[in-house]
């Protein structure tokens, strides 16, 4: 570990109150920095998005206290300011049973492993996992995607893996966390603001299972295939009488030089039908947000990676009181994305992306992204 790494590490640990951990054992420091410019000429889209420059900075410290016990802390700077994204203890006694406790990254979908800007080649996230970098993201419009990622929460995750023969890994995990918050639909920003405690006395829970086949021969065309399923359920309001249920399926594969990914996810969220001000008569007292993406990624040269993505999002349910007047009971987005990532040098990269947004309730928009960053 270099002196500068140690200084960064000490600074982060000091800020998080973990300085004594430095004395415990091996320390690994990693992180990433990325700035992205989102541009669009559509006045409507510009007024309903976080266009302009957005930072995503992260610094992670992992301390291996013993062979089976480690601590991890990750601080992030983004749209919500500086926040503790991860802060947990991890106990890894056996491959088949391990535990994380603290502020953890909730495993939902394949993208929850790749949300860091250095983990995906496109400049933006798939719509089902998008946060504030989507058009019409506001709570009176689409109110973000299905499960905005990263979803970090306070709780416990038990996980493990088993092997079927030597070619299929089955990873499984179940968790209990504080859960989403809100009163009439979810309030995403409350997840990233102090206080980081639960708003009701009822934990939420979920599970994820992933089966991964790996080819035993290096020359096989199909080198790797993963199929995953995720689920979560809980109550989100203070009185704990309105629930949310989210589920997803994901598939990823490596075929020759191509990386293929596809995911689908939906979330059903109860609403308060007793409130005044709804524009329509309520038939179903919930909102269903569902979406998908399919993505192909391939290297062109050792320094250039090209991505093609097609994704969509549908919000179905009565617009809430005070919603954007243009929002209908069934509102959809279809988006076509082409992006390139240029690997510049020693962990530095630049991203360029073009997106064509086709919306049912809002004007069509052309969006471009230009970003640069690095990871270590």
């Amino acid at each position, binding site marked *: *570990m*270099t002196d500068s790494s140690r200084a960064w590490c000490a600074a982060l640990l000091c800020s998080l109150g973990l300085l004594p951990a430095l004395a415990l054992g*091996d320390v*690994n420091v990693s992180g990433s920095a990325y*700035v*992205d*410019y989102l*541009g669009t000429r559509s006045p409507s889209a510009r007024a309903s998005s976080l*266009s*302009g*420059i957005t930072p995503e900075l992260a610094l992670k410290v992992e301390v*291996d206290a013993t*062979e089976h016990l480690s601590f991890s802390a990750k601080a992030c700077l983004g749209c919500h300011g500086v926040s503790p994204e991860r802060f947990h203890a991890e106990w*890894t006694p056996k*491959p088949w049973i*391990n535990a994380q406790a603290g502020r953890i990254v909730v*495993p939902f979908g*394949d993208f929850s*492993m*790749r949300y*860091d800007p*250095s*983990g995906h080649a496109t400049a933006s996230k798939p719509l089902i996992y998008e946060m504030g970098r989507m058009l019409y993201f506001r709570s009176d419009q689409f109110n973000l995607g299905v499960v905005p990622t990263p979803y970090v929460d306070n709780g416990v995750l038990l*996980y*493990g*893996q088993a092997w079927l023969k*030597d070619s299929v*890994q089955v*990873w499984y995990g179940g968790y209990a966390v504080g859960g989403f918050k809100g009163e009439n639909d979810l309030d995403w920003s409350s997840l990233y603001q102090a206080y980081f405690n639960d708003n009701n006395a009822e934990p939420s829970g979920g599970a994820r299972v*992933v089966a*991964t*086949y*790996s080819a035993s021969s*290096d020359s096989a065309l199909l*080198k*790797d295939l*993963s199929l*995953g399923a995720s689920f979560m359920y809980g109550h989100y309001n203070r009185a704990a009488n309105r629930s949310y249920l989210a589920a997803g399926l994901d598939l*990823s594969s*490596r075929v020759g030089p191509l*990386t293929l990914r596809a995911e689908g996810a939906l979330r059903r969220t109860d609403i308060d039908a007793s409130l005044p001000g709804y524009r329509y008569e309520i038939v179903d007292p919930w909102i269903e947000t569902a979406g998908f993406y399919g993505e192909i990624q391939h*290297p062109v*040269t*050792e*320094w250039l*990676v090209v991505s093609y993505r097609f994704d969509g999002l549908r919000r179905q349910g009565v617009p809430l009181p005070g919603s954007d007047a243009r929002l209908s009971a069934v509102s959809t987005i279809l988006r076509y994305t082409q992006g390139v990532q*240029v*690997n*510049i*040098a*020693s*962990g*530095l*990269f*630049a991203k360029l992306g073009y997106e064509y947004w086709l919306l049912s309730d809002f004007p069509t928009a052309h969006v471009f992204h*230009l*970003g*640069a960053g690095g*990871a*270590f």
Partner: protein
Amino acid sequence: MIRASGVVAALSVSGALLMGVSPAQPAVNRVDVSGYPPDVQAAYQVFEIKCSKCHTLAKPINSRLSADDWKSYIKKMIRRPGSGINEESARQIFHFLRYYSSVKAGMLPPSAEPPTDAGTG
């Protein structure tokens, strides 16, 4: 005005980064293993597939972890969802990373025979 200056700033950052790039530079997201021993080349293939699932290869390639550090780090990666890293894959990944870190540190020429492999334990 703010929007225009934002574009200029983003372009400037990216432009400045790209100006320093030459495609002929050493690999930044891939290792040229053509001069490596055959078993290390085979191990690199496993590393290239497994270790690019969740992050770019630049991350491990540019890391300063030692061989011992890699042993414990790979154990963590094995337990990630969908890693698909079994004992044999882990041994191969470790074999490559240990060799590559020795080459990077100047302890081995690229064509040297690899040291005896102790596995990931």
